[in-house]
């Protein structure tokens, strides 16, 4: 139920004055597009969606929101899988998709300055011809945006060797909940003070709105070797992963697909992978040519010794891209084998992959569900896909419960409730199982330092609503703060 009072009509008029009425969406039919993100099962219609084009416009919108007491939900490309961009009823959604310019490419210092709406893959596309790339590569990279990646600390297949978004962003221009524009981080090697970038990246839209970011770019490795190996079951594939790591190899990526995932991928993309296998691994090793070739040869040996049925290496770059296309289209491919599916994202210690996969298989069998697994095996980041039929009453809910139980399995094995999809709206309820009250309180300290008004993305990440009002005691300022030498930088 959307409240349209005289006050909200005033707010809308002011918002339209800033971004232009064509970028201020209030029409219910048009608002439908923004009712959810990649977590499509939950929908909320916002009061208004604004699409600013500049940092100043974003700041102006935030100031109006503050004045009217309207909560703000920032939104990138809307591809997130945890409902991080799920609107708040009677709130404003700020969509950053119009801010999609690449502002600066600095090959000398290996940096790029970007607006938040730039699509992840477009960053690499802009520099690939010069022999550079941007490392974080979430599977949705052809549609997801850098701003969303920063909010979610997005990973991807190749973060095993190269790290996550948080390891690749130097600094950001941020609009705070006061509507101020603040630079966070530093273009230099070291910033002074607290590492606010650490807090900003992965904060899921709860601390501010990034309107520009300086990211790190890398030289494309001299050589990348890919191998595709099939195994009788996920046990042998798991042993192969452990073997590669134990040999001192740091692969760029190791992806595992089980029988059901392979079936879906083959049906959907037409890759010529065998169907009579229990699991497959897709491995990238990269680096200087001699190193990559040496480690690739070693990995092939380890795969054979681990009981591989077949080991393939692509004949050319086209074939290599095809293998990766198969892997990256896995989620979408599930439509070929099931009317609906629920994607889970949990993490376990790498050495327990076989054990945990068996526990998950047992759980799903017991509950009457099929489960497909396609995941980042190198860092133990599981993506079990619980397959269900939404036409059968109660099945969607039941599948969700099974998926929740999978998270508890991950926690019991010393893992995490999310490796890359974020907590968002979807997993806020499980944060209390993963963290203590004191842990969550400390996280809330960080949020409140950025957004004392708690207007950004309320209801996300934290299991129960939290305000920023209460403080343990009166703060005792330092002499330089009183004399106003400090704090005005």
């Amino acid at each position, binding site marked *: 139920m959307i409240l349209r009072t005289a006050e909200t009509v005033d707010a809308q008029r002011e918002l339209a004055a800033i971004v232009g009425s064509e970028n201020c969406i209030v029409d219910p039919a048009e608002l439908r597009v923004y009712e959810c993100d990649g977590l499509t099962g939950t929908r909320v219609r916002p009061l208004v969606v604004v699409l600013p084009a500049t940092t100043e416009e974003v700041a102006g919108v935030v100031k109006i929101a503050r004045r009217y007491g309207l909560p703000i939900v920032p939104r990138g490309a809307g591809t997130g899988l945890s409902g991080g961009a799920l609107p708040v009823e009677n709130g404003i959604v700020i969509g950053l998709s119009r801010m999609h310019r690449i502002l600066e490419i600095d090959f000398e210092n290996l940096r790029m300055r970007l607006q938040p709406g730039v699509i992840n893959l477009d960053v690499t596309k802009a520099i690939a011809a010069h022999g550079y790339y941007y490392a974080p590569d979430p599977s949705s990279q052809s549609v997801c945006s850098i701003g969303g990646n920063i909010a979610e600390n997005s990973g991807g297949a190749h973060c095993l060797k190269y790290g996550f978004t948080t390891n690749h962003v130097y600094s950001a221009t941020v609009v705070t909940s006061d509507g101020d524009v*603040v630079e966070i981080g530093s273009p230099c090697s070291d910033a002074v003070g607290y590492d606010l970038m650490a807090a900003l990246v992965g904060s899921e839209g709860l601390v501010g709105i990034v309107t520009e970011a300086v990211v790190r770019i890398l030289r494309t490795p001299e050589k990348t070797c890919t191998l595709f190996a099939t195994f009788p079951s996920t046990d042998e594939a798991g042993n192969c992963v452990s073997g590669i790591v134990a040999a001192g190899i740091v692969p760029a990526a190791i992806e595992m697909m089980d029988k059901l995932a392979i079936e879906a991928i083959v049906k959907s993309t037409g890759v010529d992978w065998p169907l009579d296998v229990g699991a497959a691994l897709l491995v990238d090793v990269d*680096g*200087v040519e*001699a190193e990559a070739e040496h480690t690739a040869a070693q990995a092939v040996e380890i795969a054979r010794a681990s009981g591989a049925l077949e080991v393939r290496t692509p004949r050319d770059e086209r074939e290599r891209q095809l293998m990766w296309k198969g892997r990256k289209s896995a989620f979408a491919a599930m439509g070929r084998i099931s009317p609906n599916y629920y994607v889970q994202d949990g993490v376990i210690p790498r050495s327990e992959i076989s054990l945990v996969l068996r526990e998950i298989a047992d759980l799903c069998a017991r509950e009457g569900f099929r489960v497909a697994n396609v995941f980042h095996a190198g860092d133990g980041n599981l993506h079990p896909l619980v397959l269900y039929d939404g036409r059968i009453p109660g099945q969607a809910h039941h599948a969700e419960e099974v998926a929740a139980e999978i998270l508890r399995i991950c926690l019991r094995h010393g893992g995490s409730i*999310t490796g890359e999809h974020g907590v968002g709206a979807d997993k806020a309820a499980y944060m209390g199982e993963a963290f203590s009250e004191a842990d969550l309180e400390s996280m809330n300290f960080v949020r409140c330092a*950025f957004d004392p008004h708690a207007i950004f993305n309320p209801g996300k990440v934290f299991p129960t609503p939290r305000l920023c009002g209460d403080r343990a005691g009166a703060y005792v300022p330092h002499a330089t703060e009183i004399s106003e030498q400090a704090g005005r*930088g």
Partner: protein
Amino acid sequence: MIADVPIREIVVPATLDEAAEIMRARAARGASVSFMGGGTDLGYGNSPERVDTLLKTEKLTRVVEYAPSDQVVTVEAGLTLGALQKTLAAENQRLALDPPRSELATLGGLLATNGYGPLRTRFGTLRDLIVGISIVRADGTVARGGGKVVKNVAGFDLPKLMVGSLGTLGLIATATFRLHPMSERREWHAVATRSLRDVRTLCRALLDRRLEPSAVIALADANACATYVLFEGFGAGVESQGAKLREVARDLFGGNVSRVDARGGVDAAALAEGARTYGNVRLRISTPPAFIPSLEHDILAPLRSAYRECRVVLYPTIGATFVGGFPREGDRFVSALEGARAAAEAARGNLVVVECAEPSLRERIDAFGALPDSFPIMRRLKERFDPNRRLNPGRFLGGL
């Protein structure tokens, strides 16, 4: 004493529970608390306003959990990096971090000061290696962040936030790190560069030839400049990179490249560490890497003249430069530092941080220089974690 400030009381907890108990008790009586690990960086930052209690972590040295097959280790904060590396070496693994004085420096101290060495080129800093943390907050509450898996986006990233916080947000009690395999081979090579311009040209060429050094160090006198390059990995890769480096150096400078870590050779890492720990007043200059050719004229030369004797070492691929030595009389040094800071700021926000200074100088300079415009957020962060400003008060940026 810490930087001339007397210490009223020293406590040495034997367990984490005891540490939390001490924190609660000091909170009850409003005592300020500072923390000390190996004491290798006590000169870092501004002088604390007071030190009612100094909590030493020297007995908190347990390896809490080590899972070699997961390449993850959890340790108590008082463990030295050297001792940790010995434990890890038995499994052919390491924490990819090589700050000065690693035999003495503790993981807690390194986290608090964001200590790093030349391996940063390839492996980043502790923020890129830490995956979990537990802290004791000012009121004695124990809180955790992150976990013990390398990939984890559940909640705000407390582990990274604690890196470089200089004991002002809480006591770092335990930390969990991701590990790397030990390399089959590592080779240091010396390249005959003559100037910082040469150093920069070399770094650029390494990048363009797709070489992947683990570390690059340049030792820069006023008139000479020697560069050392470290390659690590499997034998085949290290050998081919060494060969390419020789080609690059010949093409660029007509110069030689020599293996320096063979028997009787030069220990490049030790040389660099010597420079980084030299003298009683040390500075760190952070710049974008491409600024390095201008560094000598704009910043280093005026600083050199303010030292009676000094050494300069750079990590040129990162843009970090360290100057250490014995300064001339105070006025001259203070104005040289101010000049360097102004020049640095003019050149796109470069930073000059005082890593260590003698007490008489400390009173006249701020260790961190100008405040960033994000300082109000930092102050609010401090207010939340330490509302009574009892943790290492005055030591950090802007009097936090």
